[in-house]
């Protein structure tokens, strides 16, 4: 199966053009003026300080989930578990806050982030171990595990963790001030974004320049050759799956702490799946994930506002993401096909 490995300029421009055409057709099909809708989408995503804050707020979990997929992806592992790891991180992080809500922020926030990383990390460790020890397909295991931790969040907030003061609404108590991630004043841009950007840079250095960069590349390219060099495939499978899970876990607690203010069932708008596709588009390169997650974050934030102000259905954001990814999957391959045909 031939796949174009790089994303050259022509393919990117064509992808964008095709996506815009499809999005316009989608709005036309809804009976809305397509060009007006597309321009308001841009305005709602980037038009003023509020929109930009919303875009960065949506970008943050997408960025973290994409990194969570990219880390095991560098070894050739296909993990689709960011959604489940996000929820697992949210559970453990929230558990810590509920346990010691009166701790000062300087202590509580780092502890909360660590707990979330452990929660997500454990949730990545399980499929990692299964893959390393028993050769169980990590894609299927992570996909199925997603449903489990999402249900566990519901079980907790409908049950033991429900705040009696919330009048039947399934949610924990509101996070105390010391457990809310610091944010840029009057915006929803919070510490999670900084963590994501730093992680992206750090992972770029680790996977491209660090001591381990070449070893992991060899192991990913050919497991047997890697093992001849004394590298343990099993160790790296478990390590990278766990680290990926930990990153998604941070995404989870960041949503709970900075955006929702409490644990409730709707902490993720499918960020795990979006993150997977972003990571895949970026070919698992952390620095490429940054702009793509910003773009998709803008798309999600813009369609959210469009739903509010232009009465576009709520499902539009998901449909447009699906169209974007289908286009990005189709265009480079078709282009390569056309080139072979032309050169013949």
């Amino acid at each position, binding site marked *: 199966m031939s796949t174009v490995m790089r994303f050259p300029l022509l393919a990117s421009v064509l992808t964008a053009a095709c996506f815009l055409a499809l999005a316009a057709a989608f709005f036309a099909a809804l009976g809305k003026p397509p060009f007006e809708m597309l321009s308001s989408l841009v305005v709602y995503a980037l038009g003023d300080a509020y929109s930009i804050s919303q875009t960065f707020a949506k970008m943050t979990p997408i960025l973290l989930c994409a990194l969570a997929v990219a880390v095991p992806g560098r070894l050739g592992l296909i993990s689709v578990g960011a959604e489940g790891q996000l929820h697992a991180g949210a559970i453990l992080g929230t558990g810590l806050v509920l346990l010691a809500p009166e701790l000062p922020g300087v202590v509580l926030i780092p502890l909360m982030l660590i707990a979330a990383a452990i929660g997500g990390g454990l949730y990545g460790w399980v499929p990692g171990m299964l893959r390393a020890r028993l050769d169980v397909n990590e*894609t299927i295991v992570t996909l199925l595990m997603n449903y489990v931790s999402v*249900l*566990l969040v519901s*079980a907790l907030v409908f*049950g033991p963790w429900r705040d009696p003061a919330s009048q039947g609404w399934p949610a924990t108590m509101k996070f105390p001030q010391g457990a809310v991630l610091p944010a840029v004043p009057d915006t929803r841009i919070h510490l999670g974004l900084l963590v994501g950007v730093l992680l992206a840079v750090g992972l770029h250095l680790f996977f491209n320049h660090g001591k381990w960069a070449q070893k992991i590349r060899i192991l990913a390219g050919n497991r047997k050759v890697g093992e001849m060099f004394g590298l343990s495939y099993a160790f790296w499978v478990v390590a990278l799956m766990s680290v990926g899970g930990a990153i998604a876990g941070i995404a989870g607690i960041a949503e709970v702490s900075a955006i929702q203010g409490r644990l409730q069932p709707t902490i993720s708008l499918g960020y795990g799946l979006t993150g997977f596709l972003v990571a895949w588009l970026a070919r698992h390169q952390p620095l490429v994930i940054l702009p793509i997650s910003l773009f998709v974050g803008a798309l999600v934030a813009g369609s959210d506002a469009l739903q509010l102000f232009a009465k576009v259905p709520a499902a539009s954001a998901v449909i447009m993401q699906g169209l974007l990814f289908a286009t990005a999957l189709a265009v480079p391959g*078709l282009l390569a096909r056309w080139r072979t045909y032309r050169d013949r």
Partner: protein
Amino acid sequence: MTADFVALLATWCIATLRSATPLIFATLGETLTQRVGVINLGIEGEMLTGACVGFTVGVATGNPWLGLLAGALAGGALSLLHAGLVLGAGANQIGSGLAVWMIALGGTSFFGRALVGKQVTPLADLGSPLTDGIPFIGTVMAQATMAVPLAILATCFAAWWLAQTRPGLKWKAVGESARIAGENGIRATRVRVTAIVVGGLLAGFGGAVLSVDYTQTWAQEMTKGRGLVAVGLVIVARWKPALVLPVCLLFGLAEVSVLRIQSAGYAFSPHLLGTFPYLVVLVVLVSSHVFARRASAMPADLKAVFA
């Protein structure tokens, strides 16, 4: 006492079968798709689309069979997108399947809003004066619909077709190596497109059985990962249609146990109980790796997807 026990056993048997039926169609479809060397995670979206379109047509026409047919066609049509992306554009199969799933998620949650609370005419049950009153069989027939025997027949037919017919042999050859199959005069791409569409038709049909026959309601994202469960169960069934039936029944049994525990009034969290069927599938998947060698059963071209 004995009569009570027989009646209880019969209720459990038929409940398990009915719960497993949508999944049997989907798992069978995914098995056939994977036998030609293509993995389709979009089956989750195809099932969901089949459930949505099937329910819409079922409500509109008042004829459940038309609903099932429409659901199958919708699933098949959506699978063409996966076929186009994977075979036409050489796209990554996992990425393509997830993109298809995403489009279906958005599309059905949009079109499904109009379906919430609607009533559908279900399939007729198989009870008749002939079987009424016979222990076990009478109970089973009174609660079964045609979808159940259809699912069993479909798996038997697929198992026979794959093992005993020449086109079946061609499909298996393509799954082992499209290149060698092509060198021997088999149109590998055509076989693969056909298998993806057959998988989509079956998944769509299964989805429609779920909404029209089993739950008889529409709910957003109502397949709840059944398509992905199907992908996992294909591995457990070692890519054999004949084994699809027993592995799907395990999931059905898990789901029925959950429903029974809930309706018996035990104070369990329904969400916590809801994790049980997924855990059962995971445990079964892991144990199938412990107790059986998987590598030999997996179509060789499929391995390349994960390499």
